[in-house]
């Protein structure tokens, strides 16, 4: 049996899904659905799979999320729908319910947060509501795990016995009623052939759902009759088609709630939210507090907790590597194989696992920010600023995370509600200088700009941001034009984050990263190992100067001549920077045969301050590391797009370095 879980955003849908499935969650593709869905077996029911559909407010086909939900229900025909609604905000939540009922699939209404309604002194007459809607209604509290078994039992019962919604008519007698019925009648035969309820088809046609219209294969004559009927309704009713349907549904809901809901005089959670907001979205405090919170999260992630975990992990990997190293020597294994295992395989695993502590810690904090309701406030506070570059307030958080690490930053774009915003944010995040580039900056500023270290650092960060802004402005006017997404967003009441949700999200992100990024990073590390250790005739090299990698470095070095650094060692270091940006520094050390202490003075013989600036700007902007590229590929869902992004970044890096280098040369000489 397959059940679909549908509900508004902030209705507690994820919490209910986690309660139902625990850790039996998987992400995958259902036939006929292009986007991955989360699904899992219900823990206490046999052979019962529940699919978590995106949080939506309506079934109009305007947003991607709405289309996914509509198509899943139409094409996959689940055995039942669990419609979760926030009982403290019932009017708007029931709006979606009325549309779901039209789809004629057994549906159970889960009235979530009933504990809050009761605690505030409110009541809902479940029996009358169930009778009026013609579906089962079960009060639950997803956070407290109350009423959930009853909900599932009712759902299974209704699905098994095919209890379809008993009522589909929510309109008063009048023009709207007549129009819907006339159209239902016209499309009836077409709809039934497709297994689509005629009433659902009729309202979708009135809403102008082009996909449904084309699937119904209506004749021109029928289309004319339909249009005529709608226009007649609009004139008689004095409202256009969109408003008429919304008005019809909300009128029914208002009447229903008037009879079944006793509202509390005051809602404690709301009053508490108003108090918290008087600080967190305060005119003067909001932005400093937001930056402060982000700084604390950064410090905890990259300096304290994440770094601590990373150190332990590194210690473990080093110990294991040493053990294997000694074991292989003891067994007298061929040194090439030993090098493959130790420098290739283990280094690869190490670099993949190195990201895990950061991802886990960051998502721990991010899920708290999201679940508590603060993230919506951030979007509210930062919206005006982000809109200047064609994004909405929500994008600020992934971009700030980019200062730490591009990998979790790109993963964090998943919560953005608009596809276009998501792609834009992914495109811009790599321009924000990640923390792995700091060792490169530190080395070069120490070598060339001892007196202006801070200035150069700030200059680099600002150049990255500036480039990002320019790229954003250009792409807004070219390939990212698209429809602007309305920023009409709910600000949920502040709530205490559910521990289970936080833990499951951390687990999901860690698993996701390992599954998707492992192979790519692993292969890349081994390829680099191979290139570093073998020469053109595939003989082992003793000195990395003769390696394949050096040959490639030599081959591409002329590309960098216009930027002022025509040295194969530098281009080779840039290539190894693909695996991880820190590798740029270590490769320069290896290729110049100098220790960390000698490196600054060696560099001053290879670079002038001017070419150093050019090199720094290039490293700031050129392709992100393999792990980031793998994540971008995963989140964009397309390898060609990810490759395009890498190429575009390298191009932009080259152009900007070229411009800066030559401008400075003109000014100075």
């Amino acid at each position, binding site marked *: 049996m397959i059940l679909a879980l549908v509900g508004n955003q902030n209705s507690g849908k994820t919490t209910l899904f986690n309660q139902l499935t625990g850790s039996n969650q998987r992400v995958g593709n259902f036939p006929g659905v292009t986007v991955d869905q989360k699904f899992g077996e219900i823990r206490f029911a046999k052979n019962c799979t529940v699919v978590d559909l995106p949080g939506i*407010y309506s079934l109009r086909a*305007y947003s991607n999320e709405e289309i996914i939900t509509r198509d899943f229900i139409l094409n996959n025909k689940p055995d039942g729908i669990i419609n979760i609604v926030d009982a403290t905000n019932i009017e708007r939540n029931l709006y979606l319910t009325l549309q779901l009922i039209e789809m004629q699939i057994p549906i159970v209404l889960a009235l979530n947060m009933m504990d809050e309604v009761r605690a505030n002194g409110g009541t809902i007459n479940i029996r009358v509501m169930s009778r009026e809607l013609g579906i089962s209604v079960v009060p639950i509290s997803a956070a407290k795990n109350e009423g959930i078994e009853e909900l599932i039992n009712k759902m299974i019962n209704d699905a098994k016995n095919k209890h379809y919604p008993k009522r589909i008519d929510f309109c008063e007698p009048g023009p709207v009623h007549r129009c819907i019925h006339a159209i239902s009648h016209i499309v009836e035969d077409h709809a039934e052939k497709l297994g689509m309820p005629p009433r659902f088809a009729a309202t979708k046609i009135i809403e102008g759902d082009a996909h449904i219209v084309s699937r119904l294969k209506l004749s021109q004559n029928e289309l004319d009759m339909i249009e005529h009927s709608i226009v007649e309704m609009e004139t008689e009713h004095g409202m256009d088609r969109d408003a008429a349907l*919304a008005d019809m549904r909300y009128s029914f809901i208002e009447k229903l709630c008037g009879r079944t809901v006793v509202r509390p005089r005051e809602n404690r959670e*709301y009053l508490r939210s108003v108090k918290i907001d008087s600080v967190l*979205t305060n005119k003067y405090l909001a932005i400093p507090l937001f930056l402060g919170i982000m700084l604390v999260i950064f410090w905890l992630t990259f300096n304290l907790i994440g770094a601590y975990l990373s150190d332990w992990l590194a210690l473990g990997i080093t110990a294991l590597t040493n053990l294997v190293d000694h074991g292989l020597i003891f067994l007298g294994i061929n040194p090439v194989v030993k090098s493959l295992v130790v420098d290739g395989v283990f280094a690869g695993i190490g670099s993949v696992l190195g990201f895990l502590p950061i991802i886990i810690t960051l998502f721990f904090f991010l899920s708290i920010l999201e679940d508590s309701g603060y993230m919506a406030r951030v979007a509210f506070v930062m*919206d005006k600023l982000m809109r200047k570059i064609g994004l909405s307030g929500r994008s600020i958080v992934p971009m700030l995370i980019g200062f730490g690490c591009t990998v979790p930053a790109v993963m964090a774009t998943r919560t953005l509600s608009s596809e276009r915003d998501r792609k834009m944010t992914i495109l811009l995040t790599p321009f924000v200088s990640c923390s792995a580039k700091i060792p490169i900056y530190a080395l070069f500023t120490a070598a060339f700009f001892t007196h202006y270290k801070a200035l150069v650092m700030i200059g680099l960060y600002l150049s990255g941001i500036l480039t990002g802004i320019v790229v954003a402005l250009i792409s807004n006017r070219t390939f990212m034009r698209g*429809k602007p997404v309305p*920023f009409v967003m709910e600000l949920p009441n502040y709530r205490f984050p559910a521990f289970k949700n936080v833990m499951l999200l951390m687990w999901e992100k860690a698993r996701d990263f390992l599954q998707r990024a492992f192979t790519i990073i692993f292969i890349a590390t081994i390829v680099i190992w191979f290139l570093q250790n073998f020469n053109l005739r595939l003989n082992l090299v003793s000195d990395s100067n003769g390696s394949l990698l050096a040959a490639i470095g030599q081959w591409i070095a002329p590309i960098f001549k216009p930027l002022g650094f025509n040295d194969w060692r530098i281009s080779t270091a840039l290539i190894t920077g693909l695996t991880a940006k820190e590798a740029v520094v270590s490769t320069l050390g290896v290729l110049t045969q100098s220790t960390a202490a000698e490196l600054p003075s060696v560099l001053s013989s290879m670079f002038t301050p001017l070419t150093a600036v050019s090199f720094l700007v290039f490293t700031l902007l050129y392709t992100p590391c393999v792990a980031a590229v793998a994540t971008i590929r995963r989140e964009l869902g397309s390898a060609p797009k990810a490759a395009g992004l890498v190429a575009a970044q390298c191009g932009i890096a080259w152009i900007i370095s070229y411009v800066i280098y030559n401008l400075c040369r003109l000014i100075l000489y």
Partner: protein
Amino acid sequence: MMLDQLKQGKTAVITKVGGQGALRCRLLDMGIIPKTTVTIRNIAPLGDPLEIRIRDYTLTIRREDAEKIEVEPVEE
């Protein structure tokens, strides 16, 4: 008057919802329809968007979108 001209803390009744396409449908779906009461609760620190209270929940809306909603202020 239009919703964006309503002062912070003031309440009004919606008389007409303008706009078009996705925006208009979104507004209607969220329950912003004629005869509904709306209150301006807060304004973002940079002056935009607005935070409004409607049908027992809170919503953010940009000024450029609020400009398309006609309201009749409620005398207190």
